[in-house]
């Protein structure tokens, strides 16, 4: 509850800050539109050649792309603005301030500031999901919608956890810049994992769980999801939160601040 209010406060602070730059606003909206349009165009081209991609029809693939955009938007809005500076904070001792606050440090360090304009991407994602459903000519059943929301939440939890996990490696190796790798792996989420050949598909599901970010939620929406998978998604989401918390605490023990 208190964390929610805090979250609201940081959001409003960041929003005020971002709104001060109107040019940014326009630019951000433009990049989002271009990103989504190019994603849709790519799908359009692929589907002139084939009617199904890894078993996914055009409408389904569009729903997946929209879901991917939503999670990407959340990542860009709430997570990235914090973790990009993280290694620098560890080496420069800026993390001290975070540690002095009576708020879970992982929360302040990973969600303490945000880029509200990234929400345009979430909005676009929602629109794309809607467009996909229209293309399929389907109105999702309430249960499918529920499954989508649950899997989406699990996907967002996994996204946050994996991103923070990667950032907290800075406690061990501050010079390692894995952001680019993360971004590259992240791109795999645009398409259903079933288009990838087996070893890759397995890796994208269980090792770098990109499948949980877009494929599984989208699947839940367009085809429904069994209770087993629903439970599994929830369990993995929860487990990832736990794991990142443990790694974070272990990392903090190694934190040596900086002089002065």
């Amino acid at each position, binding site marked *: 509850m*208190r964390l929610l*209010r*805090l979250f609201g*406060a940081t959001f409003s*602070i960041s929003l005020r*800050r971002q709104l001060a730059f109107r040019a940014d606003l326009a630019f951000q909206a433009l990049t989002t539109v271009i990103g989504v349009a190019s994603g849709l165009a790519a799908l359009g081209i692929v589907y002139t050649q084939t009617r199904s991609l890894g078993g996914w029809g055009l409408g389904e693939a569009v729903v997946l792309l929209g879901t991917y955009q939503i999670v990407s938007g959340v990542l860009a809005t709430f997570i990235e603005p914090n973790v990009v500076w993280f290694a620098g904070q560890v080496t420069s001792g*800026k993390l*001290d*301030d*975070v*540690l*002095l*606050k*009576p*708020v879970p*440090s992982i929360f302040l360090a990973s969600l303490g*500031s945000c880029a509200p304009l990234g929400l345009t991407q979430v909005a676009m994602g929602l629109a794309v999901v809607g467009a996909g459903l229209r293309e399929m000519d389907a109105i999702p059943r309430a249960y499918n919608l529920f499954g989508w929301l649950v899997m989406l939440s699990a996907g967002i939890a996994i996204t946050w956890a994996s991103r923070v996990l990667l950032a907290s490696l800075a406690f061990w190796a501050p010079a390692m810049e894995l952001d680019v790798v993360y971004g590259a792996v992240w791109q795999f989420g645009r398409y259903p994992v079933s288009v990838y050949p087996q070893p890759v598909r397995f890796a994208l599901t269980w090792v770098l769980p990109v499948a949980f970010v877009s494929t599984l939620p989208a699947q839940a929406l367009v085809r429904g999801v069994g209770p087993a998978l629903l439970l599994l998604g929830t369990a993995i989401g929860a487990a990832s939160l736990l794991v990142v918390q443990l790694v974070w605490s272990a990392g*903090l*023990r190694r*934190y*040596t*601040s900086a*002089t*002065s």
Partner: protein
Amino acid sequence: MSAISVRDLSMTYRAPVREGGLRAAVASLVRRRYREIRAVREISFEVGPGEVVGFIGPNGAGKTTTLKMLSGILHPTDGEARVLGFVPWRREREYLRRIAMIRGSQPIGGPPELTVMDSLRFQQLIYEVQDEEFKRNLSELDEMLDLGSLLERQIRALSLGERMRSGLALALVYRPRVLFLDEPTIGLDVSAVQMIRSFVATYSRETEATVLLTSHYMADVETLCRRIVLIDHGCIAYDGDLMGLSATLSPYKLVRVAVSDGACGDWSRYGEVVESEPGRVSLRVGRQDVPAVTARVLAELSVVDLAVEEPPLESVMDRVYREGVA
């Protein structure tokens, strides 16, 4: 019960050794070498509730490191500490709400685009300060720190002194019970220093907060602290009365003499001349010789004024820092 209790606390940093030159750089890829820096070595001390203690020592003695451990930022490599009954580095919420660590070198963390007032509001939220209490505390702080015109300004546009005043307000608006002040007066002008000193004194008196203060300005320590803990090379070298320190550490006293006739002759018969001008002199005299020397001076010269003083703390500390505690 003590407010702060420290037992055998140690902190060893492990810093990678980087030698110059390409060859060394390549070699370090294969095998990293580390150097251990024993910043704090098994220190122990206690601070009672409401006490204001000066924690002093030369550069690199381990003061900041100790304060960081006590405020929960660093995990010590060894030893124990309790502050208000909490183990600092567990960083329990109830603990962090009761303490503040303020550093003169970076008085304010957090986003610099915010105004001071916005930051204060944010502190209120984080530290769960009730509205009424917040207003009351803020108006008190405003009075003592003269915040008025600062509140609506952005933090990034504040000068060092303004930053320090705002930083104190930010840290004290939630009324911490224990303050760790790390060189709070560094780089401030005379009046700002005065303001901060009297502010700390008033705060600790009115709220009965416990204060552990480091500073390289002995005047800070002299005005604020009755007791000091001296740390040197990571070890406690002295813990006790401020007055007792110079008595213990400096084997000399200062004897100031003024004579009427201006005839001084050879002052060095009485002791080592520290400064002299016609008719006046300051002599450094061994503690046990003071009675004999003053008697001789009074007997042999026509003395107008004579005073025996402890040497200034600055010069005592200088000797201690350079030569160690005997």
